[in-house]
């Protein structure tokens, strides 16, 4: 079943006193896979990483590297390489010695060090900095020293703990390429922790969304985005976030309508079956920003049953088009967001506009459990 480099986590639990910070977590990471654990602060993702590394003892559950149970194995014997948020490079050593550190402490032969270190430095474009000390480097350069130090090792698994969080936003985009460079060079499993879902989407082969110590859903970025199984995942993945409205399901004959103080949307027949049990009840409607359109540009018929009105508050330019922040027309306005393919002129700010909703792309969630109704 498992190759030497397949990582398995089975029913992992970590308690700090009373609180289960990691609460029955199971997952498998394939060889060659960069698996991203993403979730809000306090969800247990960093603790999970530290358990994988052996930096914390497990409360219960199993961690396997290939066929080997590693629960009781010390971090240094697990043969992991870790890249930290604050780089953790030694201030008293120069760049060369920092990169060489892991090899030296494992008594690697001199020739290997002399060969691998400059190679690793070149890969991350810091080969001209080998004699410098960390205090003479920028944040981005220090991060690349940390990456070079990892690439020089032959570890079983590469762990990344929010490595880009301390970098300026602009550098973060460039540094993502370096992370991929490291991961592809080694061909080993990688586990990457971040709170930033766009980073998760950009880097992960598969993504595990965590909340309150548990995995909510695992899948590729596209799977999580198109088929979120819970309201939490639907809201967490995707930026700008999905718009959520509380609606009441009302029936008139066979047709179902989602009723809200500011709008009433007709549910297409193919989606009615799953929503029918909730007739007369309240559920949550999720509409992604890109499924709100200017009525002119759409390829489906627009009528009162699939239109939503709002007042434009902010127009933000995006790479292609713009993001428009609106609020509904009711006594207590609710904020929502639409993304357009072209740039809406600033003259629309403060104006009331109609938006066509692509009703075939909506999401519905049960209120108490947060479960998605339309696919599960």
């Amino acid at each position: 079943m498992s190759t030497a480099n397949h990582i398995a986590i089975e029913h992992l639990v970590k308690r700090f006193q009373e609180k289960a910070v990691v609460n029955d977590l199971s997952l498998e990471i394939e060889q060659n896979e960069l698996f991203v654990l993403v979730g809000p602060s306090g969800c247990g993702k960093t603790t999970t990483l530290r358990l994988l590394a052996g930096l914390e003892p497990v409360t219960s559950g199993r961690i396997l590297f290939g066929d080997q149970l590693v629960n009781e194995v010390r971090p240094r014997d697990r043969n992991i390489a870790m890249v930290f948020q604050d780089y953790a490079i030694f201030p008293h050593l120069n760049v060369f010695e920092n990169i060489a550190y892991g090899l030296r402490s494992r008594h690697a032969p001199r020739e290997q060090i002399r060969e691998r270190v400059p190679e690793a430095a070149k890969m991350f474009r810091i080969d001209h900095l080998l004699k410098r000390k960390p205090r003479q480097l920028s944040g981005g350069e220090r991060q690349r020293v940390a990456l070079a130090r990892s690439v020089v090792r032959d570890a079983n698994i590469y762990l990344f703990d929010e490595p880009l969080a301390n970098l300026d936003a602009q550098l973060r985009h460039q540094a993502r390429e370096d992370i991929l460079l490291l991961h592809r060079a080694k061909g080993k499993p990688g586990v990457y922790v971040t709170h930033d879902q766009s980073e998760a989407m950009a880097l992960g082969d598969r993504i595990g969304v965590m909340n309150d110590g548990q995995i909510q859903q695992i899948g590729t970025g596209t799977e999580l985005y198109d088929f979120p199984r819970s309201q939490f995942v639907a809201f967490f993945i995707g930026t700008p976030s999905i718009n959520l409205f509380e609606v009441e399901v009302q029936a008139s004959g066979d047709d179902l309508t989602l009723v809200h103080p500011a709008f009433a949307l007709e549910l297409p027949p193919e989606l009615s079956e799953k929503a029918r049990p909730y007739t007369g009840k309240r559920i949550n409607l999720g509409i992604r920003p890109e499924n709100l359109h200017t009525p002119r540009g759409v390829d489906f018929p627009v009528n009162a049953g699939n239109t939503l009105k709002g007042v434009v508050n902010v127009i933000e330019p995006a790479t292609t088009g713009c993001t428009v922040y609106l609020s509904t027309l009711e006594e207590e306005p609710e904020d929502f967001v639409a993304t357009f393919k072209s740039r809406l002129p600033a003259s629309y700010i403060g104006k009331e506009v109609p938006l066509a909703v692509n009703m075939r792309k909506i999401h519905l969630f049960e209120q108490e459990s947060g479960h998605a109704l339309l696919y599960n």
Partner: protein
Amino acid sequence: MTSVQLRQVVKEYDSLDQVTLTGYKNPPALRTVSLTIENGETLCIVGPSGCGKSTLLKVVAGLEFPQSGQVFYDDFDMTEIKPQDRGVGMVFQDYALYPAMKGKGNLAYYFQQHQHSQQEMEERVRQTSVLMGVDFDLLLGRAPDTLSGGEKQRVAIARCIVRDPLVFLMDEPIVNLDAKRREQTRLEIKKLLRKFHITTIYVTHDQQEAVFMGDRLAVMRDGVIEQVGTFDDLYYTPANLFVATFIGTPQINLLPAEITAGHINMAGQSWDLPETLAGALVPGKGRVGVRAENWLLSETAGVPLLVSHIERIPTERAAFLHGTVSGTSVVAVAPLEQPEVKSVLITPDWERVLFFSEKGEEVIYTPGPPEFF
């Protein structure tokens, strides 16, 4: 409501104790900076870490005094005036709360310090909580350390509003929040700034945040303001290469090119020089600047982009192809459904490209904002 003007401000930190063994001194934090922030506008100052943006904010506040130059609020010279007498409100990245007090106490602190009546204080607190929106009432009864990061930040902002400041100064107020919280909090801040029409200076290193928050942006580097303008000004008509690469995500792609009579040669291929460019460009070497959304993808014509990975962004209905063209990093926008490929052929939309000098930062030509009609 006030306008703020910096006139020729120079700020150097004491250099004596900055001399290292190699004799290197810290350069000036602000090098002859002049800037006007209009009454009621939000101006975002953006730039990489260390560019001097926080120092500029401190000079406006009076937390730092310049070596030369002046700070004016409307027609009043504030250069020598202490911060507490300038009527500024400040929100920092570490929230600046006083932990011993409950939420309401934090607002009242200002009045206690300034000896206003209890009644005045209550009224102001009440008004502010209404302005901040319904749930702020909940915040008033709670001690600061039970509040989340985003909530603490809103209390900090409310404290500023209560003071009815002439000028609102914010220094990376949301940098410490989770990405998701940041999204939510920045919209709240933007709505508040709009509502109160307070002259605001907002400092951040994140250009996407600056673009969202600001009516105008000032891009800084190494103590100098490189350009001031709206997003459109900076994006379509950058003053130099630094501004062109700093504003816009993904970063603009730069490729060496050569103009000959009637042709552009780039990445081993040649195109006819369009009319619009023929008049603006002289023969010679330079660099072409192509924004990710200005590449045209094709099956048959163009230069090969060797794709290293595809980043799909459903909310933008687009995919970003990351790769290289003749060894240079390039990012090109493709449709969201773009299939996984090892390479695609891309051509610049020559009507939309910028031209830069072969070396250095000079902008030779920009097409300006696009025509829609």
